[in-house]
């Protein structure tokens, strides 16, 4: 299969909410992470930030289980574990937090921003972290900014932790200055290498200045206002996008930059806002786009017509399913997402095959029954389900890798396809069995 050049649509046409076809809304037992997981990649991206979770031993245990070996590299995150005396009111939580923060800052004097991160336990006992954040901000001004957000399982699922964190930064973004021209704000943490690839393309197109949220250093917060054009690099940032729009930013509707089509349309949304003509656009993106097509060709044979089942995890599922079906010819059986924001995903939904079964939320036992019954060739799921499904003879792709690997843009389109073709290749290769 070759990827045909797609007709580019005019700006704004994606904004029309498309009613999601065949959507199944389920509630029940969930097999997903809470938003605390976001800390694991956010702290790598925001190099002068420290994340202090106010929670329980469970929160600390989760972070260390999810962070794997990273925990040992003197990470910039920790948990203030609530003890009996905190729960019985014997200790003043604000004093306790203050003492712990003092210890952290003593150990890490390089910290410039500190996040107090709410968890399920801290929410249930109604700890007011915003008061603590204000008090600490005043105490450490101007050396350190202290912010707070919640990433509890009660409120957030996995990548929504990044949304909650970034939304907490938005009020602190400086306003545009009167003489500022238009700017492009790319929203969502991306691996450094991807960030630079996009910067080069925007430079070549003459689009700029380009700013980023999150920034690697807190001193570089982007300015925001009515001349800010907002391009989302990740689909799970609905709340942050809303906050930025409230501050005047104009969101450029586009699919997300996965694969040739997604990346082209994503760049095109910015190019149209800057009035870049078609020829120039074509000339700039052609080399990288053609490389991406060649890279995808390596995986098309193995993936074409393979039947795919997505368990919900990160909200990346719908854009990735669109990429896998349109550019690699995979057949979508079910695409599960923890949360479906039909406004942000309008452009994506219009590109999905209309027969796709979408599911939002989860009742994991029933979803497993549907999965087993449909005998997919490939199941995308979390680590709690992957090995058990493999043991049942299904081939799986564990989904967390999709949030940690560089997968955006033209240069990683082949890598992204490989993440899905590798488990199938391995299954063909191995000559072991029961």
């Amino acid at each position, binding site marked *: 299969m070759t990827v045909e050049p797609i007709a580019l649509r005019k700006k704004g046409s994606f904004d029309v909410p498309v009613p999601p076809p065949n959507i199944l809304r389920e509630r029940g037992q969930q097999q997903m992470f809470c938003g605390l997981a976001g800390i694991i990649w956010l702290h790598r991206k925001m190099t002068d930030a420290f994340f202090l979770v106010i929670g329980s031993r469970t929160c600390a*245990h989760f972070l*260390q289980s999810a962070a794997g070996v990273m925990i040992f590299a003197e990470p910039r995150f920790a948990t203030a574990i609530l003890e009996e005396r905190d729960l019985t009111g014997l200790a003043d939580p604000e004093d306790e937090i203050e003492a712990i923060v003092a210890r952290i800052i003593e150990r890490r004097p390089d910290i410039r921003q500190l996040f107090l991160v709410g968890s399920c336990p801290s929410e*249930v006992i109604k700890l007011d972290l915003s008061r603590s954040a204000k008090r600490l901000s005043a105490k450490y001004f101007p050396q350190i900014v202290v912010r707070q957000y919640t990433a509890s399982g009660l409120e957030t699922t996995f990548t929504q932790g990044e949304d909650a964190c970034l939304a907490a930064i938005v009020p602190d973004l400086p306003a545009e200055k009167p003489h500022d021209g238009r700017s492009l704000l790319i929203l969502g943490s991306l691996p450094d290498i991807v960030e630079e690839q996009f910067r080069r393309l925007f430079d070549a197109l003459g689009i700029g200045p380009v700013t980023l949220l999150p920034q690697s250093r807190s001193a570089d917060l982007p300015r925001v206002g009515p001349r800010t054009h907002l391009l989302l690099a990740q689909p799970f940032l609905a709340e942050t996008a809303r906050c930025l729009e409230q501050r005047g930013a104009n969101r450029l509707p586009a699919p997300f930059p996965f694969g040739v089509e997604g990346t082209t349309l994503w760049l095109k949304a910015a190019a149209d806002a800057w009035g870049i003509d078609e020829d120039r656009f074509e000339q700039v993106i052609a080399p990288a786009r053609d490389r991406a097509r060649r890279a995808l060709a390596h995986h098309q044979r193995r993936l074409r017509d393979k039947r795919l089942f997505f368990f919900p995890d990160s909200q990346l599922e719908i854009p990735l399913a669109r990429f896998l079906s349109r550019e690699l010819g995979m057949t979508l059986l079910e695409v599960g997402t923890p949360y479906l924001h039909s406004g942000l995903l309008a452009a994506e939904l219009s590109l999905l095959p209309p027969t796709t079964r979408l599911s939002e939320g989860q009742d994991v036992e029933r979803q497993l029954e549907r999965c087993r019954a449909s005998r997919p060739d490939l199941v995308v799921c979390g680590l709690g389900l992957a090995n058990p499904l493999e043991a049942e003879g299904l081939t799986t792709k564990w989904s967390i890798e999709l949030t940690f690997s560089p997968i955006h843009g033209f240069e990683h389109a082949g890598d992204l396809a490989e993440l899905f073709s590798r488990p199938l290749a391995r299954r063909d290769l191995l000559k072991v069995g029961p």
Partner: protein
Amino acid sequence: MKLAIWTYEGPPHIGAMRVATAMNGVHCVLHAPQGDSYADLLFTMIERNRQRPPVTYSSFQARNLGQDVAALFKTTLSQAYERFQPQLLLVGASCTAELLQDDPGGLARALKLPIPVIALDLPASSKKENWGAAETFYQIVRHLADIDVRPTPRIGRRPCCNLLGPAGLGFRHRDDAAEVTKLLAMMGVDVALCAPMGASPADIARIGRADFNVVLYPEIADPAARWLERTFHQPIVRTVPLGHGATRDFITEIARVADVDPAPALLADPSRMPWWTQSVDSTYLTGKRVFIFGDATHAIAAARVAHDELGFQIAGLGTYNREFAREVHAAANLYGIEALITDDHLDVEARIAQLQPELVLGTQMERHIAKRLGIAAAVISAPVHVEDFPARYSPQMGFEGANVLFDSWVHPLMKGLEDHLLTMFRDDFEFNDASGPSHLSQHRPVAGGPRPSSDVRPVWAAEAERELGKIPFFVRGKARRNTEQFAIDRGVAIITLGTLYDAKSHLAG
């Protein structure tokens, strides 16, 4: 509040899961918020289990808080019962649900299920994982043991015992149980029941038929064994057969309790460890200063092996589980040192840095501390990572366990010695980095790793070279090589960013 980056133990409900996962026919329903199901991956990934742990979570979210959440728990419970048809249900709450007013036990009783339901009280802010496992196992034994079941008269049968303690996510529990079973068989003693690992509720009901109990892991089995001793008068064998000497003591104790002859097992002793440690090769181990930290059972046993069987000097000894602080203090006294009882890894790090031992025996955390300090290390206790759930047979207990201990503790020291010698002779003309291994002299590598062979070497443009630097180090060498070969094949003299990415897309897949 207590500042924690690393925790040695999870919360107590993880302990309950370790017991439920180890058993057959048991299902655990946890009242827990969405997100707490992360714990499943410890079992499916670290222990590499083929099945999901038999645990169902109520997965409540903010919108359920209030009246709704108790109803949600009841629904979850009845659905789990219908779906899994277990012989025994455990119900409990994780830390967040513990703060709510719902009573999982009461809600479960209201359902009047036709199977035993045990309500677990798991105080998350004061207790931890090992306590949770011990409490869960104790409750199961107490609720299910049929007090009318007693051993049959000894006439005409072999003595039999229960092996208590092996559980899910236990450090080498799988192979320890196998090794100890072999050892007992050598003595003519049968294992009536191994629990919780592999046991069903019906098996637990008949726990009283054994003549005595062998406690392999006191952290998990001690409360249950004490109750069995009181209720069934089953004696407890407390010697843990970790190390060569302890294994021989274990045989002696079993022989006394089971009333069998220890001589055949002691004479058969197939261990290679005593000769390995006596051989002249091991002389340099004498007086090596070792720091030991872990769960109490493994730490105390490791100290004895290190001191009596390898000839090390014990520089430090400690544990993270306070429940066994007394035992560890007593053991430390034997070596004339002060025990370190803490669950704060920063305290452990400070002590290791201060003592500067030559070898660290500890958990995964001590392995990393030692790496940072440049000290040799081996893992002797949980918490451990996936590499310490090996495919190969590698018990810690019994005679084979002693062999395993010798190899796994001495290897890092030999590695350290080798590294030291290599550094010392680094400037030697025939022993430097560029000359490569002597037995591979015909494949002498070029400095900087393998390169494609060509007379015309392509040059890297500065921008491309910088981009290459952003590629993770473990694939950078391959990327460099592939790109250069790609450039050579096409007669490209200067590698630009474009060439780098052209090569990447050409070679994808």
